[in-house]
């Protein structure tokens, strides 16, 4: 692997010269990151329809291509060739900016997600903080879309959605703090390497569950999909959007689902570490994929299983249950670490 990489580097430097090559190399890395991410984003839509179909004892999409494998492409083509409607009363520039503001942060967060100790686009030392900061920018896209549409449903949907996102962002941020306490670093590579002895889910099981439920609420997924509760709000904040501009909201949503699944697998489920050291021969990236894939499956599973929450229940769960529990767990983790350190005689 390393030899091939060296060969590529030598070849590239010969072709472009060292300075230009380093730029080209970054571009190549970005493409190599975005290609699988976009692949997962498009294919989780098919997985969703297939899984929910199976759970409701029906085949799901099966006409386009073998087993429906070309369905996402057909959907994309359909979205592209639809009319882009710019409502008369909308604030046009903000209206067009909002979908970008949803999609771009969802893709940008991937920069610091490691797929193995070396396979990472930008190994910055503030990885977790970066992801939290960038992903919370998505709320701007939603509130701007609701305001710029100048439509009642879009407005109400965006208010609900943003209130929900910020509520659960608090508990999601708090669930990651015990992990950082244990690791002593914000780098995701360090977080995974520290889980060699046992995965963080073992000492921090309640945090893992709060994290997962919070991210389901944060991505506006069922059973917390109140912002787009069809019977009351049509499609929520993207009611007025059509063609690819609404497609970008979907892409952003699914990119976030894939992202938080990977983040959960990295932070709580040991990332690329195998569950038993005997299973070391299987490459780490496959383990990471399996764990993240499982979390994505759970996303779809709960959508097929649970009825929608009411808004008051949603807010109560976030502010009155998750927030105190996660704060208490931060205290408990700090206390235990202090005590063990005291006994260790430092």
């Amino acid at each position: 692997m390393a030899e091939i990489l060296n060969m590529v580097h030598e070849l590239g430097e010969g072709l472009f010269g060292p300075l230009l090559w380093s730029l080209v190399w970054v571009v190549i890395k970005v493409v190599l990151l975005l290609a699988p991410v976009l692949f997962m984003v498009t294919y989780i839509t098919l997985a969703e329809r297939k899984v929910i179909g199976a759970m409701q004892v029906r085949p799901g999409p099966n006409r386009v291509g073998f087993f429906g494998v070309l369905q996402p492409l057909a959907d994309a083509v359909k979205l592209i060739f639809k009319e882009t409607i710019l409502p008369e009363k909308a604030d046009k520039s903000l209206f067009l900016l909002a979908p970008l503001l949803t999609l771009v942060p969802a893709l940008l967060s991937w920069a610091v997600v490691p797929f193995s100790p070396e396979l990472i686009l930008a190994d910055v030392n503030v990885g977790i903080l970066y992801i939290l900061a960038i992903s919370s920018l998505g709320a701007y896209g939603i509130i701007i879309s609701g305001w710029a549409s100048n439509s009642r449903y879009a407005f109400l949907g965006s208010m609900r959605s943003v209130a929900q996102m910020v509520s659960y962002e608090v508990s999601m941020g708090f669930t990651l703090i015990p992990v950082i306490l244990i690791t002593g670093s914000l780098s995701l590579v360090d977080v995974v390497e520290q889980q060699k002895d046992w995965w963080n889910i073992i000492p921090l099981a309640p945090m893992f569950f709060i994290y997962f439920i919070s991210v389901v609420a944060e991505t506006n997924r069922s059973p917390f999909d109140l912002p787009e509760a069809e019977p009351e709000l049509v499609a929520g904040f993207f009611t007025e959007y059509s063609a690819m501009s609404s497609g970008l909201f979907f892409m952003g949503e699914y990119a976030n689902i894939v992202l938080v699944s990977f983040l959960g697998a990295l932070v709580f489920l040991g990332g690329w570490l195998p569950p038993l050291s005997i299973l070391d021969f299987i490459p780490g990236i496959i383990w990471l994929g399996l764990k993240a894939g499982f979390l994505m499956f759970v996303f779809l599973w709960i959508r097929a299983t649970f009825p929608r929450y009411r808004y008051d229940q949603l807010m109560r769960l976030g502010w009155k249950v998750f927030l105190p529990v996660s704060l208490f767990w931060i205290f408990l983790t700090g206390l235990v670490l202090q005590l063990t350190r005291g006994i260790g005689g430092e």
Partner: protein
Amino acid sequence: MLEHYFPILVLLGAALAIGGGAMGFSYLVGPKRPYHEKLDQYECGFAPLGRIRMRFDVRFYLIAIIFIVFDIEAAFLFPWAVAFESIGLIGFIEMMLFLSVLLVGYAYVWKKGALEWE
């Protein structure tokens, strides 16, 4: 420093290009047949009633304010958690004091009913 963050900048450009490209391409190749009813805001087929930029529930505003407080708290907690090893017992007690001050505010907000949605 720059070498760590430069790829992020390139990724930003790529993400903007993907999003903008998809939207722009769809705008170019899609049909354009606008008429008044289509461009009006959607209200289940009725003519829109009244002003759209209407008043909204003040509780959304309250949630935003409470969120800011807790988000700033989280911003304090991150560096504290990273430096936890080096700041020792004093650092731990200090953060717990800070958290307890915040908990008083949290209890007040709860008692006042700011977290209620009936």
